Structures are given as structure tokens and as C-alpha cells.
């Protein structure tokens, strides 16, 4: 099975067996769209005039026609240019009530994949009369208390010989997975093992919604194994960066429940090296509805999945996107803007973005306002890198020159990933006794610069002797001679008579040793001796 057969948009296969015919002819020949049959298909609807709810675009190279499926229907609209669209033609009719598990409530997130020379419709169906669990009132602390009532919902798969249907359910009697799972937004992914349905498991059931995958038989009619976990809504990158995890102006530690963690709209593409890349939506935080990305470098649905710690590639109440390749050969992301305003149409509208698919993730290249008529997302990067610095350091000198200090610091850009951190004093530098400021800076590709600094305080002999006095006092010795010795050493240090100070400290060390396990605990005596030896080194003496 070809790796690039993952999803139909990026498939290079011949599209229709009716190859070369027009969409009009295809519709006529299949005889499903009455309107289309009666007359030539026209494209009277601008994209900004129609709802963009969960839009999915199948680009058919053979007929150079775009087929668009959404929530609702299921129906299809056709276009030649992504701007002008046909009426919505029905592609499905519900089977009789006693032959289906789902109600007539409209489907969500319809999408069509070209696979094994046929077309497969994935649609999320529901039945609110089939209750899976009932909400409980957690009046006492109970980690197992059921938050939300749960009912039947799952993705059902149907097949047709044309992207225009008519689609026939492969199994209308039960969902592909365990019928107790409440799931949505199923999609088709192919890897070396074969076909998988990847779907979102409702936050309504899980609280922290998940994305899971279930292997399918080759005809997609049934499960071919047990489902696996890909990730959870809580894995969304922005939920792990405090500034992004809350709405603007809200404290990062707050009383909001922070749930649900929604998972929506998982879609897959292959990177140039064959990695499997998933985009998915998990609304919340400062980003509202948004699109994050995860990558499986093995190329397998089984992962391991890395959730890119990056700014959501799409945000601002936008998401549930789908990536396809235009007839001009450009990889294009269509997303829904759930609150489009200021452009040619308002409400839930599609927006188009040219993207580059790399082995390190998807990059948004530019917004195509010429196609979608919307203002689009501001792509300017104004966020400087995050610096992770040590706290101000207070360290004891180990010799007359000070101390060789190693430290760890790093910089990470929310758009670009890890970036270089430059510093005035590298880790491993010898810092002299006294105060030194280490300054740091990092710059991202857009030129945003972050700077920071820390203070390094290296304690010389006098300060270390002060600490030694405190440490001796912590044992509250009744014998005053330890403190008398330290006072004498302090006086010699103050006069610059280091050799005499060292002599006193040597005697002090012997004295402390003799009292280990008596006046001082063994552990404290050990510390006192080690510290005194170090002070002697700082004074340039020998014990």
C-alpha cells in the first residue's frame, strides 16, 4: 500500500474511473443529484456566502473539480476554483429506522476519501435516545463521579463509486468500535499496517477528550483489531505553556475548572520523509478554537506521537481544518473561522491558507484572502523567545580566584522551537569573589529578542566565615571555644593576615573533629570541616 495513499487529497492516483469526464457528466451518469441531472452544474455560491462548518475538500485531479463536504447533509458542493461553489447536492439517504443505530439528526464532519478505487464517506452520527451514562451530582469528593450524561455517537462509514454518491452504509447496525464509546470526527489513515479510522473520543464521556485509532478491515466495513490511544486534549501544546493556557488577563493559577479538554477534527498528512503528521483542534485558553500539530516520526499510526510544543498554527476561534493540494500544486489548509467578521461574509466561514509541510511540522505561508474574502489570521510573529534561566546564584568560592560555576539555561521560541541562547559568561566560567551579572539574549526568526540576566554572588572567606558561625550556632554548643576560634579567624582575615587565619582554622578543624558525634552531629561536623577546608583554600593557605 502506497504511503502517499494516506488521504485522498494528497493522493496522486487516477481519480475517477470516469476519468476525463466532467463533474456534470459524472453527476448525470450516476443519476443521484436531480438538480444536476436536469441541468448543467453552475457555481452560483461564493465561498464567503456559505457555512464553512467542518469543511473538507476532496480535490479530484481527473476532473479538476473540488468536492466539499461539511457538517450537515450529507451533501456535496462542487467548485473549479475554490471560490465559486455549486448548490449542495444530497449524497445519502437514511436507511429505515429499524435498520440503523443512529437517528435522523444531521451528521457532523462529513468527509470523503478515495481508497481502493472507491469513495468512502465518514460521517459522525448520533442517537440521544440511547443513553450510555447519566450525570451524577458530586456533592462529596468523588474522582469517579460521572460529569456528563452520555449518549450514542460515532462515525459511520459508507461507500460509493463516485464522490457524489449515492453512499451506502457499510454497517448501519452498529459503530465500528465498541458501541459504548461516544466518539466523533472519524477519518481514514493508511499506514504500513493498513487502513485505520482515527477518531476523537468525546470530552463529554472522557472529560479529557482523546484521539484514538482503530484498525479496519481492508474494505473498511469492520474493526480489524483493538483501538489504540494517540493522545488527549490535555496534550495540546498551549495547555503546557502557562501564558497560553488561560484567556488574556486571567491569572495562570485560577479557580476555573480548566475542563473540558476537547479533541476535534483530526486530519493527517505525510511529510517529505514519510512521517505522519496530525493536525487537530482543542479549543480554549488564549487561542479559543485552534489547530495544533503532532508528529509520528515512525510514520506509523501507532507513533510514538510527539506533540509539537509550538504556538497553535491556526487560532483565534479557527480550526477543524483539512489539508489538500490544489490543482496548481499548492498544499492548502482550509479551516473554519467560527466567528468571521469584517470580510465579505460573516459567521462560520472557510478560510484558505497556503502551507508548507515539513518534517518538523506545518508552516503557514500566507493567507489567501483573494480566495476566501476574509480578513484572516494575523501571521505576524510578535512573541519573543521564552528564556529559562537559573535563579540568582549564591556560591562559595573554592579558591582565591573564586569558583568555576556551571549552570544550565535555555531558550525556546513559541513559533520556531528551540533557539540559540547567547550569554556574557558561559557555563564553566570562573567567577571572581563578589558580584557578577550574567546577561542572556535570544532572537527568533522574526527578529523578536528576549533578554534577561541573573546575579552571581561568589562568597569570599569573610562571608563564608559568617556562614560558618551561623552553622555552629545552629547546634547551640555550650562550649564557646568553637565560636572563639572562628572570631579569631575572622579578625585575621579582616587584617589580611591569611596565614594566621589558616592556622586558626586548622586548629578549629581538629577541634570540630574531636566533637563529631558529641557537640555536633557527625553530619554537621562533616559539613563544618568541609567548609573550613574550603575557606583555607580561598585564603590561599593549606590545612
Amino acid at each position, binding site marked *: 500500500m502506497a504511503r502517499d495513499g494516506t488521504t485522498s487529497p494528497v493522493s496522486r492516483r487516477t481519480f475517477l474511473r470516469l476519468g476525463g469526464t466532467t463533474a456534470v457528466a459524472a453527476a448525470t451518469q450516476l443519476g443521484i443529484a436531480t438538480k444536476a441531472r436536469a441541468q448543467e452544474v453552475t457555481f452560483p455560491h461564493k465561498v464567503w456566502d456559505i457555512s464553512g462548518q467542518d469543511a473538507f475538500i476532496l480535490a479530484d485531479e481527473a476532473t479538476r473539480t473540488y468536492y466539499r463536504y461539511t457538517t450537515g447533509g450529507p451533501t456535496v458542493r462542487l467548485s473549479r476554483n475554490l471560490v465559486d461553489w455549486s448548490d449542495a447536492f444530497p449524497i445519502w439517504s437514511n436507511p429505515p429506522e429499524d435498520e440503523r443505530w443512529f437517528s435522523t439528526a444531521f451528521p457532523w464532519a462529513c468527509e470523503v476519501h478515495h481508497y481502493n478505487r472507491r469513495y468512502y464517506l465518514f460521517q459522525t452520527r448520533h442517537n440521544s435516545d440511547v443513553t450510555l451514562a447519566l450525570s451524577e451530582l458530586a456533592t462529596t469528593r468523588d474522582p469517579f463521579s460521572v*460529569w456528563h*450524561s*452520555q449518549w450514542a455517537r460515532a462515525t459511520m462509514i459508507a461507500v460509493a463509486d463516485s464522490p457524489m454518491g449515492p453512499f451506502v452504509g457499510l454497517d448501519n447496525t452498529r459503530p465500528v468500535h465498541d458501541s459504548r464509546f461516544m466518539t466523533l470526527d472519524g477519518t481514514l489513515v493508511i499506514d504500513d499496517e493498513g487502513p485505520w479510522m482515527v477518531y476523537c473520543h468525546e470530552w463529554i464521556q472522557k472529560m479529557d477528550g482523546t484521539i484514538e485509532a482503530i484498525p479496519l478491515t481492508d474494505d473498511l466495513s469492520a474493526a480489524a483489531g483493538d483501538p489504540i490511544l494517540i493522545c488527549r486534549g490535555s496534550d495540546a501544546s498551549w495547555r*503546557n505553556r502557562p501564558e497560553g493556557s488561560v484567556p488574556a488577563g486571567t491569572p*495562570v493559577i485560577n479557580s476555573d475548572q480548566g*475542563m473540558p479538554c476537547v479533541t476535534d477534527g483530526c486530519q493527517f498528512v505525510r511529510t517529505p520523509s514519510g512521517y505522519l503528521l496530525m493536525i487537530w483542534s482543542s479549543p480554549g485558553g488564549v487561542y479559543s478554537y485552534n489547530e495544533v500539530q503532532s508528529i509520528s516520526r515512525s510514520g506509523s499510526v501507532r507513533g510514538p506521537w510527539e506533540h509539537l510544543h509550538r504556538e497553535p498554527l491556526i487560532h483565534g476561534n479557527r480550526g477543524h481544518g483539512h489539508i489538500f493540494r490544489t490543482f496548481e500544486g499548492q498544499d492548502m489548509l482550509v479551516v473554519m473561522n467560527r466567528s468571521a467578521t469584517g470580510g465579505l461574509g460573516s459567521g462560520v466561514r472557510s478560510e484558505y491558507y497556503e502551507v508548507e509541510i515539513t518534517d518538523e511540522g506545518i508552516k503557514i505561508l500566507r493567507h489567501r484572502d483573494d480566495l476566501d474574502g476574509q480578513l484572516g489570521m494575523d501571521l505576524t510573529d510578535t512573541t519573543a523567545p521564552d528564556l529559562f534561566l537559573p535563579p540568582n*546564584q549564591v556560591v562559595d568560592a573554592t579558591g582565591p580566584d573564586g569558583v568555576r560555576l556551571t549552570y544550565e539555561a535555555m531558550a525556546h521560541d513559541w513559533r520556531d522551537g528551540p533557539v540559540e541562547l547567547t550569554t556574557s559568561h558561559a557555563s564553566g566560567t570562573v567567577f571572581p569573589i563578589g558580584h557578577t551579572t550574567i546577561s542572556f539574549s535570544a532572537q527568533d526568526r522574526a527578529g523578536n529578542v528576549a533578554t534577561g540576566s541573573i546575579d552571581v554572588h561568589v562568597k569570599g572567606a569573610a562571608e563564608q566565615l559568617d556562614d560558618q558561625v551561623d552553622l555552629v550556632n545552629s547546634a547551640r554548643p555550650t562550649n564557646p571555644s568553637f565560636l572563639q576560634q572562628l572570631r579569631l579567624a575572622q579578625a585575621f582575615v579582616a587584617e589580611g593576615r591569611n596565614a594566621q587565619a589558616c592556622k586558626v582554622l586548622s586548629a578549629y578543624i581538629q577541634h570540630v573533629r574531636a566533637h563529631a558525634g558529641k557537640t555536633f552531629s557527625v*553530619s554537621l561536623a562533616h559539613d563544618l570541616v568541609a567548609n573550613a577546608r574550603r575557606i583555607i583554600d580561598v585564603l590561599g593557605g593549606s590545612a
Partner: protein
Amino acid sequence: MARTTYPLRFSDIPVREPFILVDQATQTYFLYVESDTPQGGEPGSGTIVYQSKDLRWWSTPTTVYRVPHTGWADPTGGARSPAVHLYGGRYYLITTQQNPSTVIAAAQRAPGPGGYDGDSVWQHQTARASVIAVADSPLGPFVDLNLETPLTDPSLMTLDGSLHVDPDGTPWLVFAQDWAQKPDAPMAAVRLTSDLSRAAAPPIWLFKGKSAPWYDDPVTGAPPGRSLVNDLQGPPYATEAPRVYRTPGRRLVMLWSSYRRHFTEYVQTQALSRTGNIAGPWEQLEPFVTGNKGHGMVFKTFDGRLMLILHTHHHDPSASRAGLVEIDLTDEGVKVLE
């Protein structure tokens, strides 16, 4: 004053959430635990301390703190998770107190089937937070520094605070947020004023409970006997008992506790801050004591060994005892010595 005797074996002492202070002045180990401390015939909560010279034989307990009747907390509501720190020459006792009658948010039943409400309050949320008291002796009596408000904002349900001090002396309260308020519960820290009586700045976020390493594990991330993919509501991602220690290379190790196997197994886990900064970033390491033991802290014995003390039998409080494990504190985290 009667001479202290040490008639109790460690295994005789029922212990939850243990905390040991090592006092060099008296060369005595002080073990603090929560207790019922009736006062004038009235029930009450507080802290008691057991003393030992050798960790083997222990004194009978002495009451060192009582939850006052004049503060925000319910005096019978408990004084959980004691932590005692020597700071600036005085002893500070931090306990988690609560007031069940001060409701922050009332639990709601969500609409449905067919309807839902993502803002519906899952758990009943009532006042709970860390309180700090001070004394001149490890034997107390500890006196509250701030009766009006806890150390964290009263809108927050927090617990298990302990003190962390930066190399330059800046004090922080490190604390957990309650999963009952925040199902993916953050670990957090708030800078304190130099007298430790109140917060000096808004709290910072350190990491969240879900960042523990086991949630994707097919065995320890799943309910007992079930697959990782199932129809059960996910467990809350609890954070508990943060205790922070500096490694030889000036990194920080945080010991903390949580639950694996769908909230059925309590474990002792740890995280590493390579920068040495309390702000992190925090890298999660594997749990190192499992099987319903945890809530541990580290101390150094008078003969210089590093020990972890934690509680056992997490789900059976009456059976719980203190466990002692010899450890090494390395730049790669805590290692249990065989």
C-alpha cells in the same frame, strides 16, 4: 519538665503524610503528623510531634499546634500535610486547612442526554489552603501568622504547601491545586514576603498533573484490567505533596505524589528542574516508590545518610505507617539505595 522517654517503635506509630525536621541543636528528629487535638472538651484539629534520637525509638506525641477557632478555617476540619522548616532562625509549620461550609462552587448536574455544558461544575468545591504558623522551638507552640486569609487566594483550593528558598534567600510556597477544582491539577509556587506571612506576588505555574509519565502507559495509565482505550471517564490528574531539594549540581528535584491505574494506585514520583529555578522547566521522571506509598520528604540523618520518609497503605489510613528508604540525591533525581 519530665525527661523525654522513647517507648514507641516506629511501627507502633500510625502515620499519614509524615514530615521530619532534623534539629542540630538538640540532635533530635521531630516527626510531625496531623492529629485530633480536643481543646477544652471541644473537638479540634492540630499537629502533634514525636521525637527520636535514632529513628528507631520514639517518644509519645506532644501537641504543638491547634487550628484556631478565630480564623477562616474550620477548627475541626483538619490540619493535613504538616511541613516544618527552619528559616531565619525560627520554625515555621505549614498545614493544609479547610472549611467545608465555605462553598467556592457548588457541584452541578449537567444537562443531557442530548445536551451538555462544558462549564458545569464537576465537584463540590469548598475552602481549602495552606496556613503558616511560627514558633521559636520545634516543640511549638506554633502561632498562626495570618488568621484572616490562607497563603493562597481564597478562591483557590490548594493543598500540601511546603517552603522552598532560592539560593539568594527568596522564599516560596510550593503547593498543589486540588483536582476537585482543577481536574488537570497544576503544581504551583508563590513568592512569599520575607516574614512568610503572605504572598508577595501572584502564583506561578510549574507543571500539571497530566505531565506525569504514566498516563499513556498501557498498564499503569489504564484502569485495572482494562485497556487504555475505554468508555470510562478519565481520572482527574492529581498533584500532591511537593517537596523541593537542591542537587549537588544546583538543579532542583521535586518529590510529588499522585495516582496511577485510573486513580487506584498512589505513587511517589519526581521532577527535575535543570536550571535550578523553581519556575522550571520541569522534566518529569519515573515514579520511584509505587504500591500505594507516597507523600514523601527527604532528610539527612545525624550520621549523614539521606533518607526518604513516606506513608504506606494510602487507601487504608488506619493501617498507614511511615516507611523509611535510604536514597541518594543526584543531579538526575532521587535514587533509592538497595
